[in-house]
């Protein structure tokens, strides 16, 4: 190859580069793969999906009880919150099969008759390091259940429970949106969300000692 020829080749290469071919393309490919991983594959991989023991319709039950959510999710005598109902509460109505749904049959036969508690997976369970008092929020601050839990009372089915593979906690704490963006108050249940609401409502004196919001109000 003569000198001239070499020069031509070099110029051609240069032209290609100048047109923004290789590096930018690869940059974009890299970017696209990473974005795909970060936004789509990662959330899928992070959460495992579990099914509840059997399906349950909140809306159906809501129509049958007198006292709204508190009919089943009640406060105990000592003011503590009972959470998800135990068999003892359900038995009042479901001693025997009442309706015609296959779910109820499973419930009565597998659990009620055998005296076995239903191992419900709880969407809104906070990590163990969090102390949360329902009484303070519902009884004192008169908040509605929906503010944190959303319109679950109208749901006809139970969605799959998504469990974070690292922490073991429910996806509903971080929220469905992997970026952590929320449009409703009930979309997320992270500490910042608690803090936002406390700030908005001017909950300052939650600590008697400091008359401010303090870490140990929730982290005992």
């Amino acid at each position: 190859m003569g000198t001239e020829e070499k020069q031509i080749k070099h110029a051609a290469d240069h032209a290609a580069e100048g047109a923004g071919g290789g590096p930018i393309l690869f940059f974009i490919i890299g970017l696209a793969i990473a974005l795909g991983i970060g936004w789509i594959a990662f959330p899928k991989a992070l959460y495992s999906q579990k099914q509840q023991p059997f399906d349950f319709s909140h809306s159906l039950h809501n129509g049958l009880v007198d006292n709204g959510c508190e009919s089943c999710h009640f406060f105990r005598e000592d003011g503590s919150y009972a959470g998800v109902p135990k068999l003892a509460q359900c038995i009042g109505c479901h001693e025997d099969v009442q309706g015609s749904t296959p779910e109820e049959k499973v419930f009565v036969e597998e659990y009620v008759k055998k005296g076995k508690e239903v191992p419900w997976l709880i969407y809104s369970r906070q990590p163990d390091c969090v102390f949360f008092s329902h009484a303070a929020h519902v009884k004192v601050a008169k908040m509605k259940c929906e503010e944190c839990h959303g319109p679950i009372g109208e749901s006809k089915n139970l969605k799959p429970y998504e469990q974070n593979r690292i922490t073991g906690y429910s996806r509903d704490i971080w929220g469905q949106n992997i970026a952590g963006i929320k449009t409703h108050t009930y979309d997320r249940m992270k500490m910042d969300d608690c803090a936002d609401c406390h700030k908005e409502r001017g909950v300052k004196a939650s600590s008697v000692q400091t008359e401010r919001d303090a870490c140990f109000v929730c982290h005992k």
Partner: protein
Amino acid sequence: MKIDRRSFLSLGVGFGAGIALSPLPWKLTDDSSIWTQMWPWTPVPERGESRYVNSVCTLCPGGCGISVRKVEDRAVKIEGQKGHPVSNGGICLLGLSGLQLLYGPYRVKYPMKRREDAKRGQGKWQKISWDEAMSEVAKKLGDAKDKTACIMDSDKGTVPQLFKTLLTGLGSPNFMRTPSVEDSFELALLKTCGYPASAGFDLENADFVLSFGAGLLEGWGAPVRTFKANSLWKDKKVPVIQIEPRLSNTAAKSDKWIPVNPGTESELALGIAHVLIKEGLAKAEVSDSFKKIVSEGYAPDTVARITGVEAGVIVGLAKSFAAASKPLALCGRGKGATPISLNETLAVYALNALMGNINQEGGLFAVPQPDYIKWAKTNSNASVSKLLYGKDASLKALLVANANPLYSLPDTQAVKTALDKIPFIVSFSSYMDETAQYADIILPNHCYLERYEDVPAPAGYHKPLIGLSRPVVKPQFNTKHTGDVVIAIAKAMGAELPYDSYETCLKETFGDTWEAFQKDGVLTADFTPPAPSGKIELNETSLKPVALEGESSAFPLVLVPFDSMRLSGSSIGEPPFVIKTVDDTILFKNDICIEINPKTAQSYNLSDGKYARLTTPKGSAKVRVHLYEGIMPGVIAMPRGLGHTPGFTGNDKYLAGKGVNVNELMGSAECPDGLNAAYGIRAKLERA
């Protein structure tokens, strides 16, 4: 297009930028931080309904009321029960750690029998059924008949009465109670007041406290109550004078510490009585014989020579004691885990009697023994010294319940020899303690948080009171209430017992009061104490300091055990929470420390932290030296409550191999009234 190094770099940069623009790094950081705050292997109590169950702690004779917090079926915390007459919301370290004795690895989980090919204490067991176990015991006891004996930590309440009834059915009088200062109190009160009584002290109302070695802050009486009384004294500025050879916690926190030669407390008490009588400070009459002995033999100068306390101090003590309106004199070494001589008890009783405070507010009460168990048919009463230390080798069977003689009695070797002579030993222990390990068969009782039991007469309490210990949780293992087992065995042997189960026995024992007892957890009774007679008869044959075992030429030093609030001295040993609090001047890593005065140490060329061999006529141990000005020269103090040898698999690192059991070095020195009044033993020390 050419793919070169730059392309890969671009790809990498693009990938990096993409990841940074995705939620992945932030979410991962958040998740991993949550994960690290909640290690999945950290135990967290189950969520659920929480409630409190009130019961009575039976880990020591204190009888404190406890409130156990439960979440669903799991007990998660033991707290003091507010308003309880003995402990009013207070609780001690051991009581607080009781859950580790419920859920810890120390339990005997099912009936067990020593394997035929194994010797006693080898730890080779075979699991047997309750039916097999009970019929074997019934058969063996049927053979042993009146050669059966039983040892327990208490002789009051329905369970001891069931054992006594069983023995009576067998024609055996051999019921023993582990010796303690209660023996001295009961004997002294029987002799002075004329009726069977326990000693009660109205601590809360006293306005001057003169304590002859009582470890008020070491676990004396009902420990929580005594602590509370001590705080009350501080608030009310009640003077507390502690007379003791060693600067104990009680001495350090008292208003005045009076070091006294070990074993001469009774002489000091008599010296004070001498001043009270001679100076006309006495407010009540006592027997002439007592006055005569004291007036003739216990002038302050004489007493000063014996006790090492100056005559002027003795006179001063007597005057300030008499000047108080409700002075109270106390005795019982340390926690009161060992008896003291009858004369010492009588001498201290006399100080109270001379001040007219017997059965009076702020004074010493002779609380009548509980007599609510009408069905008991018992004539059992025997002493450890005869049956276990004596020459008598006729025992054929021994039942051990709520007691651990192989650990808690002095002279471990002698106890072992005695046990070796008994062909059949049954342990009812919930735990694999030293004696259980040495048994032939173990019929494990429910642990104290799983069972009903009446708990009469908390130590040192001045009113008749019975507490109700009740099941807080369901039995965790295949254990059985000892009451039920004894009833079943007694029935199998044809004994007459009106009850089929322990629970009916308990209910019917209390009859009409059962409901109220269930509800309140305590039963109190009014009692009108008879006027004291003033009768005090000292045993003249023993009016000299107790002679300790050992020749002073071969054993120039004196070893005294001491108690600590952080060492329970319970038969089970310390749960992990408790052992973690023990000072490194008591237990250094796994080595037991002895307290020795720097002067004594110097003559042995020992410095702090050095190892030495401590030998007594009974045994020998390697110890670590702790130089301490608070112990007299020539005296060595050694903590009581260490050196447990737990016998369960897995060799628990919190209990096993920690120090030495001081009882291996101790002997006995019986006072003429049959009480082992040894306050120590002669000893020698060598560098190791």
